[in-house]
Structures are given as C-alpha cells and as structure tokens.
C-alpha cells in the first residue's frame, strides 16, 4: 500500500491541485503501536489525524465513544474547540491496532479553509455539528437540574385588580395600562368571605366580539372563580404540569394565602428554556454574603431532587462541585479586598478538591499567599469566610483544615516548608495533609500559586519508594468484608457495612497513591483511574470495573445519606444489605470483591506486604 495521501476523501476532494500540493508538503506521518495513546485526554491537538491504516478508538471515560478506521479523520473538536478541556471532556484517542496516520497541521487547515470556501464550509460544518451534539448533552443535564427550580425564580406579573362592578371596558383599559393579559376580579373583601376571579384577554374577546356583550357589562358575573393557584415556593414544574393538565396559560401565585402575582406560561417556558443554571445566576448576582445563603441552601434540595429523579451520581457531583466552587469563589471575592484576591489562591482540598462531595461535607480549605505579600485585615477576612460557610451549613472541618486556621493560610514558601515536612517526616497527620493537599483545586485568586506548590510537591517525590510505601499503606487500613453473610449459620440480619471505609476510601486512596507516583495533574478519582489506564498502570478492563464500582458505591452512599439526613439523624456511611434490592445487593457484593482485588494490587504494587 502507498503512503500517499488520498485526496478522494471528502472534504479534501474539494481542494484544487495547487492546494493539494500545499497540503501534501505540510503533512507529517504518525506511527502508533497497538494500545498506545495517540492523543491524551488533556493534550491539546495541533493537527488533524487522518487514518492511513489501522484502527483508532475514541474513548470517553471507560467507553469507546467512536471508532476511526482508514480514511477517517479526527478530531475537529480538539483542534478548533478553543479551550481543549471544555470540548474534549476527557476524551482520548488510542490505537486499537498498529496505526499510521497522516497529520495535517492546524495552520495549513485554517489557511486552506480560508482560501477555499467550499472546503472551509465542510471543515467548520463538521465541527459545528459535533459541538451541537455536545451542547445538547450538557443541556439535558441542566434540564434535570431545572426540575428543582421554584416559581419564585420565574418572572411574576404583578396582579392587576379590578372590582366586580367594573365594566368590561374598564377591564380592557386596565390590561392595556398595565400591559397585562389578564385582570383579577375582586368580588367583595377576600378576608371576609369574598372571592377572587380571573378575566383574561381571550375571555374579553369571546364575550364582546363573539357573544356580542355590551362593553358596559360588569365583570363580576363574567369572571371565572375556580382559580388555579400555587404557592410561590412550589416547583416550576408543578406549574407546568398544572397548566398542561387544565390547558390554561397562566396560574395565580400566592404567598401566605395572599395573591402576589400571575405566572404566565411564556415566562415559565422562558425559565425552562433559558436554563443557565438558576442557582449559578443567583450566585453571580450576589452583592453580599447574605445573598449566597439561599443559593447554598438550594443545593441540598437540588441534590435530593436530582437523585430522586434518577440522575446519575457523577453528574450530580459535577453540578454540585461547580455550584459549591462558585459560592466559595463569590464569597471570597465579596469578603476579601481586591489586592488579597490578586495575591492569593483559595484552594479546596479532599473530596471537595476531587469534585466528589455530594451533600455538604466538612470544609477543607486553605489560602496560599504570594511570598512577600501582607494583608493587614487577613485574619478578619479568613475568620469571616469560615464563619459564613459554617453559617451556610458547611460543617467546620474536625481537623481544623480551614482558612481561619493560620496553618492553612500562609505564604507559598511556608506551604513548601510544610510539604517538605510532610514528605520527610511523615506521621499520620502529615500523610493525611499530603493526601488532601494533592487533591487540592484552585477556586479563587491566582491559580498559579497552587500550581507552583504542587509542582514543588511532585518535584520532591522523585524516586522515593520508601515514601510511597508509607503513603499507600492506609488504603489497606480498613477491612473489606468478602461476604455479606456469615456463611452457613448466618444471622438473621447481617452487619451493616461502613461503605466509606470498606469501599470508597480504599479506591480513592489507592488511586491517589498511584496518581501521585505518576505525577498526575488530575484530581478527580474517576479521571485519575482513566488517566492511569492511559498510562498503562491499570489494565483497561480493570480500570473500567473500578470506575463503575466507585460510581456504584458513591451512589449507595448518597442514598444512605439522603435517607439519614431526612430522618434528622447523624450523617453516617452505614449501609445494610438486607435493605437493598436483590440487584443492588448482588452488585454491592461484586463491588466489594473488586475492592479487595484492587487492595491486593495496591499491596503488590507498593510492596506493602514486606
């Protein structure tokens, strides 16, 4: 077979001979062995790959999202997607067989697209198509979030009242004057047995134009008094359902029994279609810490509803992470003077940093200050930050890992000293600090400060086998039961299992140790699992099982927590297998045995049995 580029492949057939020659001269050739990564999940693409021979798998998470064979090309999204992360969404390209690709540099592609409109149209159209698909995936997720939006968040038309004795013409005038499509008719004092009716523009038309009623007729007897009303704190979705069920276009909204406005279908649809996250908007518009309180409060309800409607846990975690970080960032920016924001980096650590917290978990945050910068009001700002978050319902960290603790609000150089200490004089606390710091994510201020601290951390860890052995050991600290039942003479009720200790923590920490050893930048456990698979540390099939088990265990844990918090008891991580359905129980058993297998892998990999 020839190595020549095949110009019969669309859209390249649209190029003129001179343009074909230009393209040919700019081509490079990529030779990839089976199972090697062609384009990593976080690697920006500099060229378009056209497969000459072989087969390429496009992987997203554990799945093969697409297969590219000879004459196929990838990946316009990565190439023209701007912020690579955003559009790649963790996709990577792996050679499924020995593969050879032609590489078309981005530069020549854009030049040709500019010079040859027919070619350009094709290139950009293909790209736009793919972007659209991505966007709709995302909006589905947001749509789910909107099941939680309240009537309060939609625009309410102020109520326009007329007395029962007013004429139809008066009603029409009132509508016109107030730009309303309906009026509310007050028949007597509602507080003393009177009632409220509604008369819409459509009613007016029917009454006057079709039925020929004189415009002087009083509205009282003509209004409809079976009002459809909802409370202002009802879900928008209920309003939508009510309108659909009764085929009406508006409902009356009450607050504490009094009419406060009219919700029009068009405004409801506006909220539902213009869904750039209601809570996020609330956060963006906040001008004082107090404004953030309700946003933060809504998150818990959001989680419950999303979970209740069957939205997958990783999606919920993504959304909650995004919202929580928005709240933290906004709060910090509201409290801190601008020069502090400029000269520091607010970080969240632990599960918050990994983007895996679901319900409000303990605060784990810190502040890295630029060396040499001093802020006279630092203490007040950090105290206020921690206090406000506690006030919003984020429990204080029992280990006091919060910005209000001077140990976690310090200059970059002091962070480096601490990191040095954690690595070279490891005790239990140091190990834990190191672990949660490795998971840290920047939330506000200058992210390069965190990058530098992490760079220092990774730099200190070169070839330190002793360190990793100690670091990985806690992954084995808790027992994972191999069977949920005691065997032949099993007790009637099996012991509850602490799902965090037995399942989630070993995965999180084991994966963290492997990721740290490979100097990975990812902080999320599932992303780390896939990045480790890309690097060949984990077998791909095993990685898939592990990611799935992790999601399943997290789901079970959320279930347990949602249940216990509604009951008002202490948050705990216990799950009782007899309360599960058969399917869940079987899968739970499989997950636990997989965790055991993973622990053996960790023990072997880090030599923990010597």
């Amino acid at each position, binding site marked *: *077979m*020839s*190595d*020549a580029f095949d110009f019969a492949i669309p859209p390249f057939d649209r190029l003129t001979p001179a343009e074909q020659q230009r393209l040919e*001269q*700019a*081509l*490079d*050739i*990529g*030779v*990839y*062995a089976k199972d*090697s990564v*062609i384009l990593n999940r976080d690697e920006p693409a500099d060229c378009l790959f056209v497969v*000459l*021979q072989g087969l390429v798998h496009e992987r997203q998470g554990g799945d093969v999202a697409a297969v590219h064979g000879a004459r196929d090309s990838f990946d316009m999204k990565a190439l023209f997607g701007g912020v690579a992360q955003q559009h790649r969404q963790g996709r990577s390209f792996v050679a499924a067989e*020995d593969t*050879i690709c032609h*590489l078309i*540099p981005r530069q020549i592609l854009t030049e040709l697209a500019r010079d040859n409109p027919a070619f350009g149209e094709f290139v950009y159209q293909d790209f736009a198509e793919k972007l659209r698909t991505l966007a709709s995936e995302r909006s589905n997720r947001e749509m789910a979030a909107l099941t939680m939006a309240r009537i309060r968040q939609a625009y309410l038309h102020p109520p326009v009242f007329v007395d029962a004795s007013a004429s139809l013409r008066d009603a029409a005038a009132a509508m016109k004057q107030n730009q309303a499509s309906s009026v509310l008719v007050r028949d007597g004092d509602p507080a003393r047995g009177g009632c409220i009716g509604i008369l819409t523009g459509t009613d007016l038309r029917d009454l006057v134009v079709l039925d020929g009623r004189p415009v002087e007729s009083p509205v009282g007897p003509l209004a409809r008094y079976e009002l459809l009303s909802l409370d202002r704190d009802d879900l928008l979705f209920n309003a939508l359902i009510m309108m659909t069920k009764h085929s009406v276009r508006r409902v009356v909204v009450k607050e504490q029994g009094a009419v406060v406005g009219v919700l029009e279908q068009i405004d409801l649809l506006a909220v539902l279609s213009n869904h750039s996250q209601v809570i996020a908007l609330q956060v963006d518009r906040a001008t004082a810490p107090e404004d953030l309180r309700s946003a933060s409060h809504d998150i818990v309800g959001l989680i419950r509803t999303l979970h209740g409607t069957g939205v997958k846990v990783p999606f919920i975690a993504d959304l909650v992470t995004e919202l929580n970080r928005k709240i933290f960032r906004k709060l910090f920016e509201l409290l801190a003077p601008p020069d502090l924001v400029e000269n520091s980096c607010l970080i969240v650590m632990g599960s918050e940093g990994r983007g895996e917290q679901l319900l409000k978990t303990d605060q784990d945050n810190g502040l890295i200050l630029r060396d040499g910068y001093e802020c006279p009001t630092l203490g007040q700002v950090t105290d206020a930050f921690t206090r406000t978050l506690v006030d919003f319902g984020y429990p204080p960290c029992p280990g006091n890992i919060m910005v209000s603790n001077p140990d976690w609000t310090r200059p970059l150089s002091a962070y480096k000293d601490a990191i040095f200490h954690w690595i070279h004089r490891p005790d239990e606390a140091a190990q834990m600090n190191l672990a949660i710091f490795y998971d840290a994510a920047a939330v506000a201020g200058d992210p390069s400060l965190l990058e530098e601290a992490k760079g220092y951390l990774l730099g200190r860890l070169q070839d330190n086998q002793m360190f990793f052995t100690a670091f990985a050991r806690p992954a084995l600290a808790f027992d994972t039961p191999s069977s949920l039942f005691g065997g032949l003479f099993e007790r009637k009720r099996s012991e509850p299992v602490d799902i965090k200790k037995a399942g989630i923590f070993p995965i999180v920490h084991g994966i963290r140790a492997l990721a740290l050893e490979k100097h990975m930048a990812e902080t999320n456990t599932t992303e780390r699992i896939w990045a480790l698979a890309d690097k060949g540390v984990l077998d791909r099939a095993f990685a898939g099982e592990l990611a799935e088990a992790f999601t399943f265990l997290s789901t079970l844990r959320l279930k347990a927590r949602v249940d216990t918090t509604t009951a008002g008891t202490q948050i705990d991580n216990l799950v009782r297998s007899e309360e599960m359905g058969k399917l869940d129980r079987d899968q739970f058993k499989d997950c636990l045995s997989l965790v055991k297998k993973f622990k053996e892998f960790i023990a072997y990999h880090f030599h923990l049995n010597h």
Partner: protein
Amino acid sequence: MPIKGNALTDPDYAFLLSDEDTGERVAIHCEATSYDQSKADLRTVAAVRIRGSRILTSQHLVLSFWPTEPAEPAIGRLLHYIGNRPLIGYYLDFTVAMIDRVVQPMIGIPLPNERIEVSSLYYDRKTKIPGKNAVDLRLDSIVRDLDLPVRAGGDAYANALAAAMVYLRLDPPGL
C-alpha cells in the same frame, strides 16, 4: 570512533558533540554510484527527523551531489539538519561511510552520532520468535512483513522514510 571533541577542527560544528537531548532522531539514506565504498560517488542524501511517534515529513531534506560541484556546502546543511541526533537507517554504515568521506576532511572528525540499524532491530525481533527460518533482511521484505505503507519511487527519500517507519514500528516511543 574518536574521543569526543578531540579532533574537531572547525568549532562551528561543536553542536555535533553537544549533550543536549532534543528528543528527536533522524532517519537517513544515501544513493551512490556503486555499493563499493572505495569507488562510489555520493549522488543523493535524504534525511527526515522523527519526534516521538511522528515522522516530520514536512521538514525532510534531500541533497543532490554532482561530480563537478564541491560537496561541502550541501554536507554542511546536512550536519546542521541532523545535529547531535541519533541516526536511523537501513544499511546505515554504508550511508555514514559515504558521508564521512566528506565530513572527516571537512571538520576533522567522522560523524559522532549514535547509530540505529533498522535491519538489526528487525533481526532481533524475528529471532525472538522460535523457528529456523532464515530472516529476509531486504528493506522491501521488512516493510512488507511489517505491513507498512511505501512511498513510490524507491529513491533515497523513500528509503529513509521506510527506515523511519520500520524504526517506529519496532521500537515505539514510550513502550
């Protein structure tokens, strides 16, 4: 092999001995008037850089030599192109020997670059598989056996390219 730097007469070419790691390699092949080194005259030299898994064909170099013209200017360009990068080729010793006939008098030392002979890589691969079959070491046989695409022409550049592909197939980076 001379001791590094001990006989370099032209300091402009000190980069050949640099320790800097470009992470790149250069596949190289020459055409000559004969296979007998003592009688052959250089006709064409083709070279192409390899970075990671990529063969940088867009930047390849092809140089022609004529008996009536001095070879030094072209060889100077070649030396700048290959720098201190390891060389890859098929029957590489012949190519390097042909080039050294110009290089040695020109700068005082022969090419100091590390050499990777793709036919030995292929031989090692084949002899790992048990069996008594003789290994066919002709370049076109190797290319066919490894199912690699070939460039039409069979000239120096096509052969340099084939060597680059054989190298990447047999010794992929990062594995």
